[in-house]
């Protein structure tokens, strides 16, 4: 429109990710709310400490904006000090929020299950959780995939030095498929198993198939996410169109790419 003499790509990227990353965090906050809701509905769990849980949501609001800097780790216009401050000390306070929720949700379920009398050993309560309830199993898998795959890869990839190896490789989509699809989408699928009867007052058909649905979807996402992460470790680039420029050592992994990319349609739908 001619308003600016020159567009600075560095400023553009800063604004883009400054707004973009915490729009993702809205999904994360909603997903965590679904965890608490379904934990209560399926097991009778109550948050161990409501103040701490609410405080964790405030940590998201305060610090996730700074964490947007992890998208800019290879940008030349920003200093190392700026990147390290925003992606380590500051970002970890947002990660702390997820870790608080990651503890309090299963812990509240453990307390509820033990109160029901499932006290055998350390994991007796865990085995007795309502795994046949698709709403519960979807949310449990969501928390496991989000934490163990999405969380661990996310914090590691957000480290400036390690990001140099991983930037623009298939490891990045491997990470966010675990958080967005395996975490958020699966949690909302689980929520639907409670919302549909509550809103429409109608029951489900094919309940046996409903029981395996979260395992199919969650299992598929785990395979895809880990596949992408391993492929990225071999140097497979993030953009499929540039795949011919990959390292020769990655060639065996490229055979698996059609399988990984077929799952892109899942996200698209």
């Amino acid at each position, binding site marked *: 429109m001619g308003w600016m003499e020159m567009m600075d790509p560095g400023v553009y990227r800063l604004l883009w990710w400054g707004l973009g990353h915490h729009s993702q965090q809205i999904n994360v906050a909603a997903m965590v709310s679904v965890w608490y809701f379904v934990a209560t509905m399926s097991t009778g769990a109550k948050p161990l400490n409501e103040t701490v849980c609410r405080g964790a949501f405030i940590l998201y609001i305060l610090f996730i904006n700074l964490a947007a800097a992890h998208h800019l780790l290879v940008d030349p216009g920003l200093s190392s000090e700026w990147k390290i401050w925003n992606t380590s000390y500051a970002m970890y306070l947002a990660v702390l929020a997820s870790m608080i929720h990651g503890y309090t949700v299963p812990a509240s379920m453990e307390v509820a299950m033990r109160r029901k009398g499932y006290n055998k050993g350390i994991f007796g309560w865990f085995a007795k959780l309502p795994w046949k309830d698709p709403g519960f199993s979807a949310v449990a898998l969501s928390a496991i995939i989000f934490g163990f795959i999405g969380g661990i890869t996310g914090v590691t990839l957000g480290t400036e030095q390690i990001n140099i190896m991983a930037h623009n490789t298939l490891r990045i989509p491997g990470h966010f498929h675990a958080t967005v699809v395996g975490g958020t989408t699966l949690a909302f699928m689980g929520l639907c198993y409670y919302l549909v009867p509550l809103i429409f007052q109608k029951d489900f058909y094919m309940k046996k198939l409903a029981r395996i649905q979260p395992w*199919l979807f969650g299992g598929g996402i785990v395979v895809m996410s880990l596949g992408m992460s391993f492929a990225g470790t071999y140097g497979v680039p993030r953009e499929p169109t540039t795949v011919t420029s990959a390292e020769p050592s990655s060639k065996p992994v490229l055979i698996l790419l059609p399988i990984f990319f077929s799952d892109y349609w899942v996200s698209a739908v």
Partner: protein
Amino acid sequence: VIAFIGLLLFLVLIVAAVFFGPSFKGQKMPTWQTEQEQKMTDDLISKGYEEEGKDYHVKTPGTIALVLIFLLSFAIYYFANWAALADLWHIR
């Protein structure tokens, strides 16, 4: 492919329930759990914090064990990445 089948199955289940599912208007909402399990869950939900009082204990050894497994997984992955970085960037 597995995830795609899971997604299709989800869509079929939800659409079938919303448009053609058997109505339970005026009756108790169907549950995925046994009646006994659901009763115990309902009892826990209906109790307030005040009512539970000092009996509300928060010993969570199972969750602590899960947290330790998580931290160990994180440490292995994180330091394996630093080792890989050290292989690529030789410090002279």
